């Protein structure tokens, strides 16, 4: 299953033809696939694409505060990974999570409203872009701190083992995470205690602006589990079917073998690290490579489906219109949802009543005689 085609990353810009050739060789044959599933993958990828484009727009219009990291260019990874998770399986992600939240089953309305900081958001507006939680769909969080989610996901997998359940935990992260201490502590514990968890490194070749080669002594990231005896695989993250198959195999093996696995999926980050990042660290060639249609997972899949006759121009328009409508509806919903009231400023900090908790607002008297 391991893809031996080595990505060049942001290091050197080359014609992407060779890599596309690899992809076509490795990717499952469309003839073996259910057209309905293929169209569903396509629709979901397009939804993430349009949702993120709308998010970027809303952010630059100052409708969304804080920082905002988009899944643009990672749609095949997002949909490929989440398509193999059962409803009972858990997902932990990092701060680039909007697509994962939608793909795991949260409504685009709730996710967009969360980005807008409105009370109708999935975390009632308190989590924002990086911190969406939903116990129903079992997305146990985006996490804003690099590596923050790793020991937590490992602990959730320990809970599964302890209880004797058959759920699997998937823990997504970026390439930069593999250099932080929590990575080593978590993979060691997961392997030592035989936990059913799949760590997924989404390698977009740059931790913000620092390339993998500049940051990692072993730039073949899927090999980095070897010190913990964790089997690692690499897959072309631009190819939704390849990601799906790679992830599916590892998730089922994690379930049946009760072992951790590592999957590296590489694809290009189409924009900067966050919406406001001008990505000055990229050379002209690197920027072109990241924007190249030949590296665009949505364009790649669309072309394949059109060529195979699974997608027609009519269906394409139909899907596109429906997705646009869904995204517009989500944005309208967010736009028209209430802001949190200032009276909720002190809420949710503690689960139990706190004596003498300071809750004085500026207009209130200092002394509560």
């Amino acid at each position: 299953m391991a893809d031996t085609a080595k990505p060049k990353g942001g290091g050197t810009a080359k014609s992407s033809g060779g890599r596309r050739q690899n992809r076509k060789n490795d990717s499952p044959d469309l003839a073996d696939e259910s057209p309905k599933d293929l169209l569903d993958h396509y629709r979901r990828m397009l939804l993430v694409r349009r949702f993120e484009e709308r998010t970027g727009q809303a952010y630059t219009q100052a409708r969304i505060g804080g920082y905002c990291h988009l899944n643009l260019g990672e749609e095949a990874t997002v949909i490929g990974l989440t398509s193999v998770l059962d409803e009972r399986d858990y997902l932990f992600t990092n701060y680039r999570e909007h697509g994962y939240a939608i793909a795991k089953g949260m409504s685009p309305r709730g996710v967009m409203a969360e980005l807008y900081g409105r009370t109708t958001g999935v975390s009632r507006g308190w989590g924002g872009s990086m911190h969406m939680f939903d116990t129903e769909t079992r997305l146990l969080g985006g996490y804003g701190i690099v590596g923050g989610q790793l020991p937590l996901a490992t602990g959730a997998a320990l809970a599964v083992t302890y209880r004797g359940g058959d759920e699997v935990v998937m823990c997504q992260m970026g390439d930069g995470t593999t250099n932080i201490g929590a990575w080593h502590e978590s993979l060691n514990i997961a392997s030592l205690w035989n936990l059913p968890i799949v760590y997924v490194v989404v390698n977009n070749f740059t931790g913000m602006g620092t390339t993998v080669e500049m940051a990692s002594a072993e730039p073949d990231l899927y090999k980095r589990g070897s010190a913990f005896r964790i089997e690692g695989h690499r897959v072309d993250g631009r190819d939704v079917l390849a990601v799906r198959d790679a992830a599916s195999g590892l998730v089922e093996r994690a379930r049946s073998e009760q072992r951790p696995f590592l999957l590296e999926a590489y694809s290009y980050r189409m924009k900067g690290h966050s919406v406001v990042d001008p990505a000055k660290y990229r050379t002209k060639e690197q920027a072109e490579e990241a924007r190249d249609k030949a590296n665009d997972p949505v364009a790649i899949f669309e072309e394949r489906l059109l060529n195979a006759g699974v997608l027609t121009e009519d269906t394409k328009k139909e899907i596109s219109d429906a997705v646009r409508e869904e995204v517009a509806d989500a944005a309208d919903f967010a736009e028209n949802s209430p802001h949190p009231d200032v009276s909720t400023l002190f809420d949710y900090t503690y689960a139990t009543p706190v004596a003498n908790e300071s809750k004085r607002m500026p207009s209130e008297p200092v002394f509560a005689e």
Partner: protein
Amino acid sequence: MGSKLTLGRAINTGLRQAMEADPKVLVMGEDVGKLGGVFRVTDGLQKDFGADRVIDTPLAESGIVGTAIGLALRGYRPVCEIQFDGFFFPAANQTFSQLAKIRRRSAGVLSVPVVIRIPYGGGIGAVEHHSESPEAYFTHTAGLRVVTAATPEDAYWAIQQAVASDDPVIFLEPKRRYYEKAEVDTDATLSAAPPLDAARVARPGSDATIVAYGPMVKTALQAAEADTERDIEVIDLRSLAPIDYDTVADSVRRTGRLVVVHEAPLTNGVGGEISARVTEECFYHLEAPVMRVCGFDTPYPQSRLEEYYLPDLDRILDGIDRAFAY
């Protein structure tokens, strides 16, 4: 019927009670199982509850606390042991960025009932990392409860209450008091114990108030006894976040004088916050500024000098004298 227990044994017995009462309670940490912990606080628990429930972890504080948070997200109540105060810092990221904040950022959807037990404070002839008082780092972070215990009786109940709390609790154990014995009524019920965040008047008095917590409560009581001229009230704070200001303010309004004592360095310590708050709430009752008797603003000293660093009876009496100089 009561029995005489050391403070360490009282925590051990309390943990045992908590584990018997709730199968979701797990204990984890470095050498907490077979060895029973460096201070033997978890002694015998693995033997009785199994290696699945009393888990010997790798030496990885961030991994221990982070994994505990993950367990708590799935409904368990892990109790982590950090071997010494200064060993906590590798787990700071998980504690401050995740443990304290997940409930808030999930708008109350997720609670994280993790207890982090930390033997803390000096007086055992050890150096830094093994003798520190890091409480102010925790009390500055909303979302955490921070408690200490000065007596075996308190330790026995507080650890059970900490485990039962739906909030994360930093449980600071005064390591130099681990071996001090006192009567503990282990037959009483948990619900009859005073709340986790209530202060306790350890010695009533009318002329001045000493507020102390953890290892300093005993020293404060000795100072109060030694003062034959003045009638000193001693308050054992017990909870550092939140602080029971009602009990403190009530005392200060009666005595008019307050000395706060802790081992941690003076600057930006818990004592400074108490001083500010008491000044706000009891300004017209104060006969003197609030005095602080604390550790110095240095790293913890080498063992031959720690007796000069730690507040003792003389320094506390000196603080009281200063309060009476006004």
